[in-house]
């Protein structure tokens, strides 16, 4: 194992899965989802600017077509990219509220229970939007 990866993969590393428990997973997922959401925010800003100025071709549009219609969407005009972001926002936001409460000193002893509650609510919100909310949305093409 190279010395540069030791901090990540060494047996004594906090980030080695064998040393990670629920709170550490919550922390790691919070950071990874946060970084993903910054990427999403920048693409969201660009996509909206593009839509409002009516840009319909060019490299950037091709890029967004790829992002919005990844291979698993079968090329249909589904908003998979936005939906993935929605699920990640639900997790990041709910876990963030949990962090605020923990910082204020509430529920420190129950932090494992509240993490699983957070996950359950995030999955429920995502499922609600995908199964029930999505058909209600007006068609935007």
């Amino acid at each position, binding site marked *: 194992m190279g010395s540069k990866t030791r901090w990540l993969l060494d047996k004594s590393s906090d980030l080695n899965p064998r040393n990670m428990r629920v709170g550490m997973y919550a922390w790691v997922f919070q950071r990874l989802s946060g970084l993903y959401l910054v990427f999403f*925010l920048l693409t969201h800003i660009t996509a909206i600017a593009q839509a409002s100025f009516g840009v319909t071709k060019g490299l950037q549009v091709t890029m967004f077509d790829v992002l919005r219609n990844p291979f698993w969407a079968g090329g249909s005009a589904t908003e998979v990219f936005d939906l993935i972001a929605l699920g990640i926002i639900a997790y990041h936001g709910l876990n963030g509220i949990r962090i605020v409460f923990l910082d204020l000193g509430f529920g420190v002893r129950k932090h494992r229970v509240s993490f699983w509650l957070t996950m359950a609510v995030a999955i429920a919100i995502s499922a609600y939007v995908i199964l029930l909310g999505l058909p209600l949305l007006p068609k935007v093409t």
Partner: protein
Amino acid sequence: MAQNMWRSIALWLLQRITAVLLVVFLGVHLWASNFATDWAALLRAGVDISLLALALFHGLNGVRTVVLDFGLGYQARRFVSVGLWMLGFVAFLFGTYGLWPLLFPS
């Protein structure tokens, strides 16, 4: 040194405050963007511009937190912080510029 400490505390607190505001505003944003009626148009304009600023601050300050956890020197920390502020400022101007025709159609 003390000045840096207070700045760090302020940024930490602002990260929490923007987090709570983002949760509230995102709910309004998702509703107003997809189910908006005419009376909600002005609400949407205010919420969307606020969200743009809040999300950029929260997101880029979060990136700064992640990057600084890798333990950079003073010069590198300044470079990252100033660079992210500049990126955020440009992204806010560009985002507002792109959002304007949607919020206030002529």
